[in-house]
């Protein structure tokens, strides 16, 4: 089964990378972009039936740094 883990900086954590991308978009002439935040997408292929608790543990132990990042787990065919 395919799993997508979306990792985002927590609200309130400054994102210098997002800010630089934002400036670059403005430099290219794209108007109306209010904010840019850069995150990370990790795709996993795991055994069917892998439970959500195990996926959560993977995120908390390694895939995300919960000091600065939130994560959401999307499994194929629903959450």
């Amino acid at each position: 089964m395919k799993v997508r883990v979306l990792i985002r900086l927590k609200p309130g954590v400054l994102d210098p990378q997002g800010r630089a991308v934002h400036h670059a978009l403005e430099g290219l002439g794209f108007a109306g972009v209010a904010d840019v935040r850069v995150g990370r997408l990790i795709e996993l292929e795991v055994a069917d039936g892998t439970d959500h608790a195990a996926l959560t543990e993977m995120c908390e132990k390694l895939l995300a740094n919960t000091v600065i990042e939130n994560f959401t787990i999307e499994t194929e065919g629903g959450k």
Partner: protein
Amino acid sequence: MAFPANGFRAAVITFPGSNCDRDMAVALEAASGQSAIRVWHGDADLPERLDLVALPGGFSYGDYLRSGAMAAMSPIMRAVVAAAERGVPVLGVCNGFQVLTEARLLPGALMRNAGQRFICRTVPLTVENTDSLFTRGFARGETLRIPVAHHDGNYYADADTLDRLEGEGRVAFRYAENCNGSARDIAGVLSANGRVLGMMPHPERAIEPAAVASLGGADGRRLFENILSALASA
């Protein structure tokens, strides 16, 4: 400096991508007169009777995922965490600091520099803590000149954590001029028991006598000498 009969035993951990491990060993040897023990990341155990574990700078695992994240999961880090919990002093410099936060031995995280650029220059640091074994030979408020060389040195912790660190005297050093966006100018932090220090600046790159200040000066050497004298008098 003289050290008790059994000698000073320091281990320097090398991860794939460490590049300051030799410098760290040289600095420890210069301060102690004893060879540092080199330990590979894949080892499951540390040598016995260690006086210090040093995690060096570099780009362990190519900074994959996050700086220090993969190294924090390596076999040797389980042993380092266990040693720290027994009270063995641990020093993490630059990538070593990142590894210590990822291993949760120190609070907070090191994010991309606010200016997006890699910074490599000698910076002034203000000494905040003079109680720990790493810092007790410094004067509070003293300025040290130590090189930084990092892309991810922007210290972050939530406000409650920062208040706690400051309240408990666990900010070891601050940048006299904030070069990377670090919260409250923090350049180095201590664990609750004061025996784990993580810092972005590289003391091991500042161990030469003042006569060769172009090689980084000697302020970093004093940090290693502090460790030696603190342990010798313990």
